[in-house]
């Protein structure tokens, strides 16, 4: 079974602070994704990656950076957190070809 682990599971941050959300997958998947989930918007893609060293902008990348230092790890970075970034963030991994996605448990972020 595919395993995607996110940390932290919950985070409270202050406006203007830096936040790093981490994601680790043990499935040797090439593709990794960061989504945020908000009521009324469903899941929206922030950044994704095709492999180590690669990051691509998703549909709502503004205010976020991503880093993929290795096949296993994909981070989402909020350099200057704002209250509008309060949300639940999901990381996912998927292989090439049949790109079945496996999600982590999510990180609940509150920016005060």
């Amino acid at each position, binding site marked *: 079974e595919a395993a995607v682990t996110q940390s932290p599971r919950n985070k409270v941050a202050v406006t203007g602070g830096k936040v790093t959300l981490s994601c680790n997958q043990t499935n040797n998947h090439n593709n990794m994704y960061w989504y945020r989930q908000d009521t009324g918007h469903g899941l929206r893609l922030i950044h994704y990656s*095709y492999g180590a060293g690669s990051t*691509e902008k998703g549909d709502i990348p503004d205010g976020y950076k991503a880093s993929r230092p290795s096949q296993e790890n994909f981070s989402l970075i909020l350099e200057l957190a704002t209250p509008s970034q309060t949300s639940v963030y999901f990381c996912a991994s998927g292989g090439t070809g049949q*790109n079945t996605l496996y999600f982590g448990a999510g990180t609940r972020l509150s920016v005060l």
Partner: protein
Amino acid sequence: GDQVEQSPSALSLHEGTGSALRCNFTTTMRAVQWFQQNSRGSLINLFYLASGTKENGRLKSTFNSKESYSTLHIRDAQLEDSGTYFCAAEDPGNTGKLIFGLGTTLQVQP
């Protein structure tokens, strides 16, 4: 999202009954995936379809790429089936991106 329209937005079933959830796509999609988000918030992959029909227990899904829709049938609904069901379509440009619908919230009642 606009390219993936899910219906109904909410559904209530009694245990033992069934129904169908639908996703319509505004453009040709390469494949579709269905997910269940359970009461703990976890997203569980149910199906991946590039075409045709797949079945798993009480769930069955069909993807008609030519007519741009997919369905998820639930039969003999159980309480643990409650949650939100999302369909997601693969970007036709083969970027690996998935476009999610807004979900169908299913409540199964005793």
